[in-house]
């Protein structure tokens, strides 16, 4: 058990080191996220809709699409030079590979979210200071859920034609519960509503994470084993 977790962290560490050395993917994903925020700011009638009304949805759609770009390349990097075969030959359980890729993807997406959030506060004139703790908790809970499913799907879609199109088609339905929950919580956090109003949604997000991380661990070996 301990070895399996050490192996998972080793895989996540490898992914992050590779990311930090080239930085191309991270920087492009950040620019992509910033551009979505800008597009959102312009896709409204400024006389009718205040930035604050659009803020929660803009934030979460930006996070969702930024996560999609990260997930799209999660396994495509392993396809080059048959790196995935090498990982599968390593004397570690399949679950470690899944967990490692999940942790790596989560770190990547959290990094994008952490940089996008201040930009969002500036563009949308949102006061995020008071609700920073709540926003961070919501982001962790919502992101973990869809990245968990996305990591499994990304291992599959990389084997198909049109992988970049196939992943969103499969993953978007799975993003619906986390996104609805996250937007509802964010709306209430920005309106300074009491915590008791969002506990139900946070609990739903947490249950979603537990269920889908567990289920993904169970099904992942079927995806990579011939």
């Amino acid at each position, binding site marked *: 058990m301990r070895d399996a977790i050490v192996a998972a962290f080793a895989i996540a560490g490898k992914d992050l080191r590779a990311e930090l050395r080239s930085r191309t993917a991270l920087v492009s994903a950040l620019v992509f996220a910033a551009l979505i925020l800008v597009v959102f700011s312009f896709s409204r009638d400024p006389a009718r809709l205040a930035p604050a009304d659009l803020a929660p949805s803009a934030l979460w759609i930006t996070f969702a699409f930024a996560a999609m770009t990260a997930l799209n390349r999660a396994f495509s990097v392993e396809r080059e030079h048959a790196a995935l075969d090498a990982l599968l030959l390593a004397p570690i359980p399949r679950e470690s590979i899944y967990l490692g890729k999940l942790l790596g993807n989560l770190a990547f997406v959290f990094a994008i979210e952490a940089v996008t959030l201040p930009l969002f506060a500036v563009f949308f004139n949102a006061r995020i200071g008071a609700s920073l703790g709540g926003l961070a908790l919501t982001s962790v809970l919502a992101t973990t859920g869809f990245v968990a*499913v996305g990591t*499994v*799907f990304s291992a*599959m*879609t990389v*084997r*198909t*034609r*049109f992988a970049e199109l*196939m992943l969103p*088609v*499969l993953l*978007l*339905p*799975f993003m*619906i*519960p986390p996104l*609805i*929950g996250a937007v*509802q919580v964010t709306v209430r956090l920005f309106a300074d509503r009491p915590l008791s109003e969002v506990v*139900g*949604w946070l609990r*739903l997000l947490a249950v*979603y994470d537990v*269920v*889908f991380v567990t*289920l*993904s661990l169970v*099904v992942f070996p*079927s*995806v990579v084993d*011939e």
Partner: protein
Amino acid sequence: MTSPGHPLEPGSRLTRVGMRIALVALVALAAIYYFAIWRTPTEASQGFAQKIFYLHVPAAWNALLVFSVVGIVSALYLWLKDARLDHFAAAAAEVGVVFSAVMLTTGPLWGKPVWGAWWQWDARLTLTLFLFFLYVGYLSLRSALHDPAERARFSAVVAILGLVLVPFVHLSVYLFRTIHPLPVVLKPSAPSLPGSMLEVLLFSLAVHTLLALGFIIARYGLLRTEAARIGERNG
């Protein structure tokens, strides 16, 4: 027509059986239209639009039933690795997509006169829309993969995750809001609709389920024939 013992025989026999079942169901469906239009009372507040209930509810029921079957059969596939389970799941998913398309088109036809809008972001509507998208995605994933074993494993994974997704989507869109008519048949107290309406509805449910079964068997037979032919060609 293939001779007994031929590798293509089981598939083509199933296809013939399935087509016959579907044919019987289609004839019965004509009877349902007759009963629904001329032999049931017109609902007081919704008027003639309510007649679509005899089509919409059975289509919805079958879509959900068939999608649940796909999830369960897919879980069995990952356990037993029998290609026939995969063919069955694929056949059922196609039929489920057809029935959910019927449900999603009859719903707005009723919604326009009764709700005043073609579409509402209502809980059950949204749930079924996402189920439809999920299985359209399932079918496009299948068509994007060539290796039969890989296609079977991947699509089984999607179907299992999809089955677990349903309660989450339902709960979150329900908390979001719902304006759907509340259940009139499956509820703790007695069904709150006139006897003749209930009879036609139950008859329609049975016929639609038979139709779904016929379609699934026919498609399953075709997929088996296809697999047998590919196996034959590869020797």
